């Protein structure tokens, strides 16, 4: 007699499958939520409360954990500085930043936003990635939650009249910067490998548009899933394409453009198995620039291919140096470009609250562009455009080099958006 245990139980399999699909969807889906307003909109505040609470959504784990942690330090410094400033003003008000981890996942970003909104928080710094911003946008707009991202750059999120502000220039600027960097380096043919998300797709589009205008040729673009942890098929395809292109155009006329986050480490390691991929130069973006993961885990490979990467450049000023020194003293590390912006973002939010004498998100959203217009912070002039994004910005170009047996990021040049020109330092 066969026992029930030996039978294949279809009901159980169905249950397991349902769970599995739910887990998978939670990881990669963009839920079309029925957006409901949060419980009760906070009553309009007639005067500033004793504690101003500002939500901060950062990727403290996941692909952008290194950036998220760096920005967290900047926010903590901002909290300290702002509270000192409030004391000097003779106010007993204190600012409190509630920092939540989005795990670099759009779905988690939305969950954390909903949780903070339920607590009555109406103003937020972050999230950092465009995929996260896109996923929370509808909920934020419907509930009038003010979102100010210090690093979301996708061009298609540049929309007028919404509750999303971005204190960083969008990728139309960075796309131009990368295209100019590549052409000025003498490269006319590239194969692009990029993340298949809002940011990766957008930056690829902006780069290829400008690169073609400059006479460049995008041979092919390999799009990969942002959830992928293994890239054997993608890298093999990249090697095939680069190999053909080198035969056709020559080694010094072909390059790889990698629009990636932390997964660049695995991509570079897998690419090191193909000699041809280590013989051409690679270019990156703000997703790879100054990323600790690269120099610590794939420094040798990155230094072989240089991995020239663009990153928003704070305007060199006394204010920047003051923040830089404070950050370095506190954390024993250098601030990332987006950390400098996050620090400034905290300040313009608090200035807006002080000016309006209110924490009402609609009032703050209205006044914020005016405050930003007259604010010169550690990252430079914060002027916003009609879409509520930073109006302009220059980019530093970073590369990986080996110095004294260690792999480090070294400044290799800069791009000026005013003159659309690149200057390589050596």
């Amino acid at each position, binding site marked *: 007699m066969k026992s029930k245990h030996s039978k*294949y139980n279809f009901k159980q399999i169905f249950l397991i499958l349902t769970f599995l699909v739910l887990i998978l969807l939670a990881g990669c889906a963009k839920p079309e939520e029925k957006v409901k307003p949060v419980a009760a909109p906070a009553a309009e505040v007639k005067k500033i409360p004793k504690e101003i609470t500002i939500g901060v959504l950062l990727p403290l784990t996941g692909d952008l954990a290194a950036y998220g942690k760096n920005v967290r330090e900047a926010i903590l410094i901002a909290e300290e500085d702002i509270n000192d400033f409030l004391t000097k003003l003779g106010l007993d008000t204190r600012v409190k930043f509630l920092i939540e981890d989005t795990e670099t996942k759009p779905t988690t970003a939305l969950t954390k936003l909903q949780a903070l909104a339920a607590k009555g928080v109406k103003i937020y710094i972050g999230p950092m990635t465009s995929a996260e911003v896109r996923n929370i946008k509808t909920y934020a707009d419907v509930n009038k939650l003010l979102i100010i991202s210090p690093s979301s750059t996708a061009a298609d999120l540049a929309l007028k009249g919404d509750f999303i502000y971005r204190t960083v220039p969008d990728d139309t600027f960075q796309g131009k910067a990368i295209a100019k960097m590549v052409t000025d380096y003498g490269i006319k043919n590239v194969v692009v490998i990029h993340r298949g998300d809002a940011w990766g797709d957008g930056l690829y589009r902006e780069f290829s548009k400008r690169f073609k205008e400059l006479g460049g040729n995008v041979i092919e673009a390999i799009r990969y899933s942002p959830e992928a942890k293994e890239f054997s*098929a993608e890298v093999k395809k990249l090697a095939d394409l680069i190999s053909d292109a080198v035969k056709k155009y020559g080694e010094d006329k072909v390059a790889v453009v990698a629009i990636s986050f932390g997964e660049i480490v695995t991509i570079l390691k897998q690419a090191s198995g193909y000699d041809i991929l280590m013989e051409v130069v690679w270019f990156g973006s703000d997703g790879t620039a100054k990323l600790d993961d690269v120099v610590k885990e794939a420094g040798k490979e990155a230094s072989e291919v240089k991995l020239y990467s663009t990153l928003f450049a704070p305007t060199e000023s006394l204010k920047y140096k003051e923040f830089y020194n404070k950050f370095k003293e506190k954390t024993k590390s250098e601030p990332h470009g987006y950390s400098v912006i996050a620090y400034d973002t905290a300040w313009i939010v608090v200035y807006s609250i002080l000016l309006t004498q209110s924490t009402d998100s609609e009032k703050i959203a209205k006044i914020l562009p005016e405050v930003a217009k007259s604010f010169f912070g550690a990252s430079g002039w914060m002027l916003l455009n009609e879409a509520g994004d930073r109006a302009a910005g220059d980019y530093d170009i970073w590369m990986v080099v080996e110095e004294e047996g260690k792999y480090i990021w070294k400044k290799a040049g800069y791009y000026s958006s005013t003159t659309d020109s690149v200057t390589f330092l050596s």
Partner: protein
Amino acid sequence: MVIEMIYKDAIIYSNLLALASIGLTLTYTVTKVPNFAHASFLTIGCYVTLTITVLLKLPTYISLPIAFLFGTIIGASVYVLVIKPLIKRGADIVRLMIATLAIDIIIFGILNIYADILDRLGIFSRNFLLRDYDFKLSNIEGIFLVSSLLIIFLTLFLYIFLYKTKYGIAIRASIENPSLARVMGINVENVYMFSWSFSAGLASLSGSLFPLWFAAFPDTGITLLPPIFASSIVGGFTSIFGTIIGAYIIGLGESLLIYYLSLVVGYWILAYKQMFSVLMIFITLLLFPRGISGILFEKVMKKWLK
């Protein structure tokens, strides 16, 4: 011998998938609990290797037995503290599945705390890759050799263990008919604990090799859950040897098949390669509900698979 990189990648990935999936099948076959925390046992192995290699600066491959042992302890603890009490209280499969999901979240949290502690000690603990710590034998990477040998050894060991030893027969008896096994004097609870313990040990062993080839994070296991389940289901879900074959179908399919398919249908398909696992689950359940063990080898391996 020169093996092209894509084949190395595919074989290593499949080997690690096979090592991790065997345990999932074993716990399901023995205790009828689909363990959603299983992949997180793999992540524990990743962090054992990081600790041994980078923090303690010991030879990398020492981490293999340590990860296995550590995994067995965790697996046994999970069974004794959570699964056994729940089964005793008559929990159904849904409750047990939710319990394993909760265990998964707890392990993920603990791993994140541990990663933060390592960070503070100056050790890069997220997105870490330890390829530089591996050895090479005439152009072949250590992990390629070790993971391949481990699979061969494990297949032989499991065959001998399950079919040629008294304890193996006791395990099979407990699977076939637990009540009768009890009457025959077999301690079924011990068999259940062994299966959880051994399964977690194998997953942790797989995880200990993982960062020698792929970058690891605290959520590495969570992202590998669909291919691990797919390997098990394609293999028949109740067949250990079928699972090994299932792991190679999934592993080679996700990399090699998708690559060759992209040559025909275009590059766009590469962005969807992770759907391969889920697609294989659907195809298996719709067309071959008993998986690979039910079609290819039913007659030949009847003795092994039942």
